[in-house]
């Protein structure tokens, strides 16, 4: 199957007072249409930088990102981005925040149709009752629900999620993971989520991409997650395969993440 999203030889260098710092180097990843990819790694390893480059919010130093046959040169509503902080505009209600995007994307639709699109997604994420409230009147979890609704309402080719549930308590997080999976399945989207939560990655993704530590971070290993969908948390917990995969991820993060592939170091160096 051809690649829907193709990230090739990606390099990101930031200027610092001490000279240029290469955060990401030779990052390659192909994502099939409809696939759900989780990008996992230690905090500060550059995984959010990769996502930001795919979103077009950060410039690419070298290499390229190709989405549906077109090179990504800037941000655009064909990629729905969900940020870690929901980034709702505080002077608008949840509904108006979603409408801001809907008006941009569906400018040929009638006003009624646009309203319906916004209302539809807000209702699915569970904000049907409180869509006309301002962000300050919503809980953190409800704000993130709105952030998800805003991203899906754009009908994007691809979803990019940057640690979207990192700031939520675990119960809310579980709920929102289900909301996300539900929407993803309905709309058959391609999704890339950045996370440092092993269980979240296994629950959501078809493949988990493990990143090595920065600087010069790159893909360390890729893990296929073949649980049938729709998944339930209970079913996963009862599957011995789940613990094998979890073990694999944790071992990578604990022991191998600081090694760049290709220069497999001796055990002595690995435990340095």
């Amino acid at each position, binding site marked *: 199957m051809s690649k829907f999203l193709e990230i090739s030889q990606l390099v990101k260098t930031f200027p610092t007072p001490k000279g240029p710092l290469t955060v990401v180097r030779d990052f390659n990843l192909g994502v099939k249409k409809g696939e759900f990819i989780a990008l996992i790694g230690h905090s500060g390893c550059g995984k959010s930088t990769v996502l930001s480059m795919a979103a077009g919010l950060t410039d690419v130093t070298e290499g390229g990102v190709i989405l549906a046959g077109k090179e990504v040169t800037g941000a655009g509503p064909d990629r729905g981005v969900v940020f870690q902080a929901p*980034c709702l505009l505080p002077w608008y209600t949840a509904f108006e925040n979603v409408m801001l995007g809907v008006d941009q994307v569906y400018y040929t639709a009638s006003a009624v149709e646009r309203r319906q699109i916004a209302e539809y997604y807000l209702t699915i994420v569970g904000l049907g009752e409180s869509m006309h409230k301002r962000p300050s009147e919503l809980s953190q979890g409800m704000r993130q629900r709105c952030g998800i609704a805003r991203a899906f309402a754009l009908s994007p080719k691809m979803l990019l999620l940057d640690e979207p549930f990192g700031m939520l308590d675990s119960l809310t997080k579980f709920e929102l993971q289900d909301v996300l999976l539900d929407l993803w399945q309905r709309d058959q989207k391609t999704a890339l989520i950045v996370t440092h939560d092993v269980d979240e990655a296994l629950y959501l993704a078809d493949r988990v991409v493990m990143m090595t530590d920065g600087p010069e971070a790159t893909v360390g290993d890729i893990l296929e997650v073949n649980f049938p969908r729709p998944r339930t948390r209970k079913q996963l917990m009862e599957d011995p395969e789940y613990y094998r995969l979890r073990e694999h991820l944790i071992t990578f993060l604990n022991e191998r993440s600081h090694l760049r592939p290709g220069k497999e170091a001796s055990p002595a160096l690995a435990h340095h």
Partner: protein
Amino acid sequence: MKTFKIDWLVLPLIGVACVLVAWSVSSATWAKELPSPLKTWEASKPYIVEPFAKRGEMDQGILRFTWYSLTLVAQGYAISLLIGTPIGFFLGLSKTFTKIFDPIIQILRPVSPLAWLPLGLVLFMSAGKEAGTYGALFTIAICSMWPTVLNTAVGVRAVPQDYLNVGKVLKLSRWKTLTKILVPATLPYMFTGFRLSLGIAWLVIVAAEMLTGRPGVGGFLWQEYNSLIYEHIILSIITIGVIGFILDRLMSLVEARFKAIS
């Protein structure tokens, strides 16, 4: 409830009493020309009891004078906001614009209204009878503009990158980014600027009226000084202070409203 009343009523009254005592003592001892509080009240009474009376061009009720001054301030202030806010946005948005104009702004900003007014009169000399009005408006506008300019610029620079990213992801047009993101995010800063600008505009009016001899609180003050009626100087000072205080409070209320939203 009781402490509340002490805080906002009794304690401030003690302050007023202290000033009244110092004033009475001064007028009785070393400043013989200074009218006592009682004499001031007696001489001012006709102007306060009939605040809207018009007995002559320079002999009118105090609120009537205030009204003249306020209308002039309102016009000059409006000009300063209309010019100052866009300049502030350009400064906040463009580094090049800042590099070009920031130095000159910093140089013009501390210039006193007393220095601007003669220039204003010269600029509008051809307007004949209206030269004084235009010169005064020019002075009010140029002196009161700076807090609006600088606060707006700071506000625009402080717009969180997150909000701008939302605009980028949605590919909002420049106009939509301005009206839907930049302006709402900057409003609290703009209103801080507007409030400070209004304070300055009110300060300038007095100087402008004194030099141009226009009817108004400042003009009245200067005329009564020349006529040796010192009680009315004090009346004017108190009026100017009270009006300035009220204006500032009103703007604070508006400002607080906008701060609450964002």
